[in-house]
């Protein structure tokens, strides 16, 4: 049996699988993405920025009592 036909059968089988999935409306998908972003915005340090006292990568000037 030609390997081209075997390959083509697999392609058709895969397309059948992909054609059969349920799809959600873009309005719903977009709303959910937006909601996730906005709900988590305050917990996103790269988005909100951070003070140097909260930034583990920023060395703190240490004050010591002599």
């Amino acid at each position: 049996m030609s390997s081209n036909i075997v390959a083509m059968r697999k392609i058709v089988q895969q397309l059948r699988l992909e054609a059969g999935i349920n799809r959600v409306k873009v309005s719903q998908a977009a709303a959910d993405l937006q909601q996730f972003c906005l709900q988590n915005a305050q917990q996103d340090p790269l988005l909100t920025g951070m003070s140097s006292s909260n930034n583990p990568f920023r060395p703190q000037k240490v004050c010591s009592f002599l």
Partner: protein
Amino acid sequence: MGEMEQLRKEADALKDQITAARKAVQDTTLEEAAAGVAVVGRVQMKTRKTLRGHLAKIYAMHWATDSKLCVSASQDGKLIVWDSITTNKVNAIPLKSSWVMTCAYAPSGNLVACGGLDNMCSIYNLKGKDGNVKVMRELAAHTGYLSCCRFISDTEIITSSGDCTCILWDIETGTQKTSFAGHQGDCMSLAVSPDFSYFISGACDFTAKLWDIRDGNCRQTFAGHESDINAIGFFPNGQAVITGSDDATCKLYDLRADQELITYQDSSIMCGVTSLAPSLSGRLILAGYDDFNVNIWDSLKAERVGALAGHDNRVSCIGVSADGMACCTGSWDSFLKIWN
């Protein structure tokens, strides 16, 4: 009509069916839906640390889940595990093959992996009894270069290869559990879903594919890019996929709507995307380009809101730490930089 002819007709009909089904749910666009959201203000990040030590191009980096340690791979033939806060090298692991293209940190922190032109994925145990880091397994079966690898656990890892397939391995036995075939071009990158049940792959056939890890099936295929996809990542809620391509654009595909929702592009950007990572909320997408820069995109508005300039050569890899506090870039200039 011969069977081949029949199959071709059926394939075309199915492709038309998929296109129609996608259009049928396209009641709006992300652009329209997000019209009421203000663009993020200008994002400015500074280099907080520079990790120096590699002697040649850095090809890959991956954060450990503790958001402190990270591993990098360079064609100087070394894997280095760094403490990103102190900039100390925790481990410097010499590799058998210096042609390394990818590296990964296991979620447990116990193992790291790498691979490249040797077509193998080598697993290293960082927590060996005598303190020495040794090769624990060499996973060999791919017939092409290893482009990417990601751990599911200490016992399972997924690899992508220039042989157009991805493989799920059993690390303990060193054998293949599942092979994921379907791409028509080199697989360049992969990412695992936050719940570890799916992974996505980007390839030189210009498509991204979503795979079910357990049953080995490709669930969805996303087209639209006009050149190789070099970088891929999940949106943090696991419901969308972000890709970066040689066509100079990044795209966001929604898994549930089964289609592209938006493209991140600018007429002034004409070079390929090498790497990408979303911020913790997904609102920012950081993408590394061939022109030595990283561009920061507002994911909902598709506007460029910042850039990271500081490397003297191509940015080859980028990663945002698990706690979202920092972004790490790795470059062909041999340095890694930590930004926030």
